[in-house]
């Protein structure tokens, strides 16, 4: 059954690739088949089955991309002369701004995420003893929250706008810890 589901996954991604050329129905069918195959793998073999399925799916998709590159026509289209997304700081105020951004997104956001994760596990446990679920929740939630903070902060226009996200997170962590 695992082998059948894996083969179905490969077929599904090929259908998605064919459908990408314009036959939207085929692409939708492909995604539906992929979802079904992954469901079967997860049902049968849990996280292991899901992981093996996703690896097979990625491999198929990458093979399709490489084939597209191999068969791409040679053209002399030149890339637009776009400005680089960020510039090298030359003035002191630019350097100070960069250092402020670094401080906010690295140590400040890291600490806020850590405190929030600590507060979550305290709130979930209430007064109960420390257990494996609480430990793992703390350790695993922290990087996830930090990634979310980084994503929010780095899409703000100015360093002053990057303060709110970690501040709100830290306050939420304090409230959760206080409620525990």
């Amino acid at each position: 059954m695992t082998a059948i589901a894996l083969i179905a996954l490969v077929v599904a991604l090929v259908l998605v690739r064919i459908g990408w050329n314009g036959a939207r129905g085929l692409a939708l069918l492909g995604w539906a088949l992929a979802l079904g195959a992954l469901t079967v793998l997860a049902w049968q073999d849990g996280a292991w089955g899901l992981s093996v399925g996703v690896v097979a799916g990625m491999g198929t998709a990458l093979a399709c991309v490489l084939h597209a590159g191999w068969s791409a026509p040679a053209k002399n289209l030149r890339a637009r002369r776009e400005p680089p997304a960020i510039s090298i700081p030359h003035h002191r105020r630019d350097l100070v701004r960069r250092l402020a951004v670094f401080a906010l997104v690295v140590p400040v956001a890291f600490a806020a995420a850590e405190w929030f994760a600590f507060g979550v596990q305290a709130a979930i446990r209430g007064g109960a003893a420390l257990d494996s679920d609480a430990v793992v929740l703390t350790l695993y939630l922290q990087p996830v929250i930090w990634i979310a903070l980084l994503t929010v902060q780095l899409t703000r226009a100015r360093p002053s706008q990057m303060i709110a996200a970690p501040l709100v997170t830290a306050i939420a962590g304090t409230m959760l810890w206080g409620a525990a």
Partner: protein
Amino acid sequence: MSALPVSPRDTLVKRALGGHAAIGLLASALIYIICLSGTLVVIHDRWQRWEQPDVPEMSALSPAAVQTAIAAALANEAGKPATTHLYVRMPSAELPRATVTTDSGGWYVDASGRIVAREAHGWTDFLIAMHEYLHLPMTWGMVLVGALGVMLCALLTTGVLAHPRIVRDAFSLRARHDAQLARADWHNRLGVWTLPFVLAVALTGAFIGLGSVGTTMLAKAYTGGDTLKVYAHIFGHEPPSNPARAPIADAAAAMRTLEARVPGTAPTYVIVHEPLTAGQHVQILAAHPRRLIYGESYFFTSTGAFHSKAGLSDGAVGKQVAASSYNLHFGNFAGLPVEIAYMLMGLALCAITATGNTLWLEKRRRRGLGGARLRAAWSMTVWGSATLIVWAIWLRGVLGAEAPLALAFWSAFAAALVVAILYPRVADTAALRRVCAGSILLTAIGHLMLVRPAIAEPIVIDLVAIALSVPLLLWGMRARGRAAHMTLGADPTPA
């Protein structure tokens, strides 16, 4: 006339791209080295066979042989400080060898449990240490590598936000267009379709690397600062120590007890905690097939009687998640096919990292903003680090397994970067790529001719290395041929 209004979506895309570039420029060199070393250590067990091919191999080790190996290792420890732990690594499909390790080192044993050779895979250990903690003091190094895992995940999220045509361009790869267009397509297509892989390895890497910080916080809050008590909730509690002298624990009896209690399990490690003391106990780690967990831990008394198990296979969800993170990160949960897939996707991640910075550098060059020294430093990072990893093999071959590979690598890398910055022409990308490819080719041929491995797997690794290095060498030579006819405005960074 007023300027056209900019939509909030365009603003978000622009800011996300700026954030993506900021993280990339700050962290890409270290991320690249971690990705490159990580790609190689997916098959670290097979590198051990490649590096030290002349060691007895077997498919299984009997309980009696395990007990003999333990006794032999403890006899070897005479006159040294008492070892706190003794590990017997059992033969597996990836590494059909048995080792016994104490605090003072590791030795290979034969099928009867007799010590036959010292573990001497210094280059493989050098690669693993580079990936896990960049050869820094271990705890701090792991925290840094974990933080870089978070940065890699943030590169994913900002990269997706900065890619509004992500669905429309899903299978578009203009590999034969202008180099900058091709580079952008490689970066984006590989980035999108390896997204689940990168998310999985970067997140699990972050969990593993940053775990010590969270554990310390929990320990200070709840266990009086004792981090072992925090870890014990996941991996099992150890009985109290008792340093009084005692005979060797009966690990063979423990193995027989396990086989009777849980038939068909495959022990991967047999561990004696605090051997030769009254507080000693035996732990057997056993693999569970078709599971992501690295195994279940079974605990036994010193006489081999069953005591308890950690519950990694069927206990609390937190334990199962923690135990699953390692195999998901290492890619060793479904044999060679998944290992090969992980290596190929790891190489893709190296290409994504390399092309990302090059895209930014080339945009600067095309706008007349210069950056020759930065380009040289980046070329040296991408191709120079790989070359130095290969040259480390020769250093290990000449000086032995104890050669200071980490010191040599980082010293040489720093010097190479200084030279590249001072003399950018030296760090020509095509030339560096040829040197790298040539080094791989010569090393593979040299290994075949000088080491003459008698087992198949190291020979296969050499042949694959030769097969991959030849096209890489020819690519570099083709680029040199084009460069000879290059015009002034052409792209000098064909990476």
